[in-house]
C-alpha cells in the first residue's frame, strides 16, 4: 500500500515539475532551479510564480477533487458508472456561472455563483430523492439524472439567448478551463482536508460496498455514513467545478483505472485517486496549453484523449 502511494507521489511530483518547465516558453531545468532559488530573469520569474505555479497547483487540486468525488459517488451509488456530475451538480454550477456571465459580473462573482448553483443542485436532488422517506441509491440516481437533464435544458436556453460576443466565454467555461484559477489554495486545502476526513471512514466504505444490509450487520451506521459521503462528494465536486468549470472524464475514469491496478480497498483507492487525478489533470493541462501553442485547447478534450486509451490498455491487461 505504502509502495503504490509512494510511486504515485513521485509521479505526481514529476508531472508538476514538467508542467512548470513546459509552456509556450521553454524554461530549462537550470533556469527553473535559478528561479526557485530566487534568481533568474524577470520573464522566467513571472512565468513560473504568477502563471505556471498557480495554474499547475490548481489543476492538481481540481483533478484530485474530481477523482476522489468520483470514487465516493461510485461507492455511494454502488454503481461503477457514477461520476461526480451524475447527480446534476455540474449542471447547477454551470447555470450559476452562465447566469453571472450573462449579467456581466466579474470573475469572483462568477465563481461564487457557480458554487452557489452547485450547492443548490445538491440540496435539490437530495430533497427530491428523499421524497417519501426511503432514500435508496437507485432513487437518488434516477432523481439526479433527471435533474441533470433539466439543468442541461436551462444551459441550452441560456446559450441560445446570450449575445453572440459572450458565447466564447461561456463555452470555454463549459468545456473546462484551469487557466482562470487565480489562487490554488482553496481547492488544495479542500482536497487535503477531505482526504484527512475520509480516511477513517474508508474501511466503513469497504464494508458499505458489500451492500447496506451487510454493512449494518457488520456494525456500520449506514444512513449517517451515506449522508456524510454525499455531502463530502458534493463539496469536493462543487469546489472543483468552481475552480475550473466542468472538466469531464477525470471523475469517472481515474477511480476505475486505479481499481484495475490496486484493487478495491478504499483506504488505498481514495488517497491514490487524489494523487492520480491530480497528475492526470496536470499532464492534460500542460498538453492543452502547449500542443498547438499559441492556440489554447480546453483541458477537458485532453483528459478524454489521454484517459480513454490508458483505461482500455489497463482493462486489456487485467484480463
Amino acid at each position, binding site marked *: 500500500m505504502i509502495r503504490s502511494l509512494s510511486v504515485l507521489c513521485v509521479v505526481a511530483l514529476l508531472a508538476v515539475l514538467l508542467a512548470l518547465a513546459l509552456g509556450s516558453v521553454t524554461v530549462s531545468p537550470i533556469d527553473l532551479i535559478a528561479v526557485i532559488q530566487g534568481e533568474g530573469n524577470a520573464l522566467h520569474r513571472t512565468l513560473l510564480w504568477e502563471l505556471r505555479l498557480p495554474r499547475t497547483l490548481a489543476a492538481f487540486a481540481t483533478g484530485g477533487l474530481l477523482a476522489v468525488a468520483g470514487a465516493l459517488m461510485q461507492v455511494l451509488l454502488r454503481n461503477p458508472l457514477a461520476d461526480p456530475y451524475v447527480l446534476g451538480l455540474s449542471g447547477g454550477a454551470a447555470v450559476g456561472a452562465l447566469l453571472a456571465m450573462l449579467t456581466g459580473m*466579474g470573475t469572483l462573482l462568477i465563481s461564487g455563483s457557480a458554487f452557489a448553483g452547485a450547492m443548490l443542485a445538491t440540496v435539490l436532488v437530495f430533497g427530491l430523492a428523499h421524497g417519501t422517506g426511503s432514500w435508496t441509491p437507485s432513487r437518488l440516481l434516477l432523481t439526479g439524472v433527471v435533474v441533470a437533464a433539466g439543468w442541461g435544458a436551462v444551459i441550452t436556453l441560456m446559450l441560445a439567448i446570450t449575445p453572440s460576443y459572450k458565447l466564447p466565454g461561456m463555452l470555454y467555461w463549459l468545456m473546462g478551463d484551469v*487557466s482562470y484559477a487565480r489562487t490554488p489554495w482553496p481547492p488544495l486545502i479542500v482536497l487535503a482536508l477531505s482526504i484527512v476526513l475520509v480516511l477513517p471512514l474508508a474501511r466503513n466504505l469497504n464494508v458499505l460496498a458489500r451492500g447496506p444490509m451487510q454493512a449494518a450487520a457488520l456494525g456500520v451506521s449506514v444512513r449517517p455514513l451515506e449522508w456524510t459521503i454525499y455531502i463530502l462528494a458534493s463539496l469536493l465536486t462543487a469546489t472543483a467545478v468552481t475552480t475550473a468549470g466542468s472538466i469531464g472524464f477525470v471523475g469517472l475514469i481515474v477511480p476505475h483505472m486505479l481499481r484495475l491496478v490496486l484493487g478495491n480497498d478504499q483506504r488505498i483507492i481514495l488517497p491514490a485517486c487524489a494523487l492520480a487525478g491530480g497528475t492526470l489533470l496536470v499532464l492534460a493541462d500542460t498538453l492543452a496549453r502547449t500542443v498547438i501553442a499559441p*492556440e489554447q485547447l480546453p483541458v477537458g478534450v485532453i483528459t478524454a484523449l489521454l484517459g480513454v486509451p490508458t483505461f482500455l490498455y489497463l482493462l486489456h491487461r487485467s484480463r
Partner: protein
Amino acid sequence: MNYWPVKALLCALLTLPAMAWAEVCAEDRRGVQVCLPEPAKRIATLSPGATELMFAAGAGEKVVAVVNHSDYPPAAQKIPLVGNHTRIDLEALLALEPDLVITWVTGNPPAQMEMLQELGLTTFAIEPRTFEQVSGVIERLSVLAGTEKEGYAEAQRFRAGIAAIAEKYRNVEPIPVFYQVWETPLMTISDDHLIGKVLQLCGGLNVFGDMPRLVPRISAEVVLAADPHVILTGSVEGTSDDELDHWKSYSGMTAVARGNLFFIPASPISRPTPRLLEASEAVCQKLDIAREN
C-alpha cells in the same frame, strides 16, 4: 558676431522640456487615462481590428504580437501570433515583452484581461462603434505610439472620406435593406453597429435598424414580413458565394424579384478600421444598382 553657441544653447534648452515630458497619455474606452513614460516601442494587438488600426496609426513596425486572423495589411501576417482573441496564450504574450497591449472590450475574455493587469502590463481598451470613434481611436493610438503625424493624417483622411460620401448621398431616396451577417443561425445588425452606420451613410434603411440587440438572431419569417428591396451580405475570400441562395425560393420578395441580392467584401465592413471607407463605397454602389432595378 557669431551667435551660434547661443543659438545652440537656446535649441538645447528648448528641446529639454520636450525630452523631460516624453510621457504620452490617452483615454481608453473604459475611461481610464493610460500613460506611458515614453512612446510605446513594443505593441501587442489582441484583435485583428486593433492590428489594422495600429498600422493605420503609422505604428505597424512597432507591433510585436498579434492574434489569429490579423491578415491586413499583409505585413501583419509576419508578426508572431499569441493565440486567438477569445483565448490568449499569456506565456507567449509575456515572452514578447510588450509595453502596450491593445485590448477589445467585448471580444477579449474578461478574466484574461484582468490577469494581464495583475501581471503589470499596460492595457488600452478599444471598442469603436461610430465613424468618429474610429478616427478618434487612430489618433489616440498614434499618440501612444509616438506616430502622431501619420496617425492624425490617416484619421483626417478617413473623416474627409466619410464626410464626402455622406454629402454625396444626403438627399438620395432611402431604400429598405437587409444585411445578412450569417446564414445559420440567421443574424443581422442594428443601427448601433458600424455596419448599420455604413448602410445609413449610403441612404439605406436597415429594416432591423431599431432592434434592441446589436447582433440579433432572427427568423426568415420576419425578413419576409419586412420585405427589403435589397439584401446584402459579406463575401469571404476563397469561399463560394452561396449564402443568399436560400432567399431565391421566395420569389414574392421585392429584393428577389428585382434581382437585388448582392455580395460585398466581408473583411473591410466587419472591422472598425479605415477600410470602412472602401466598404462604404462598395455598399453605396450596390444600393445605387438596387435603386435602378
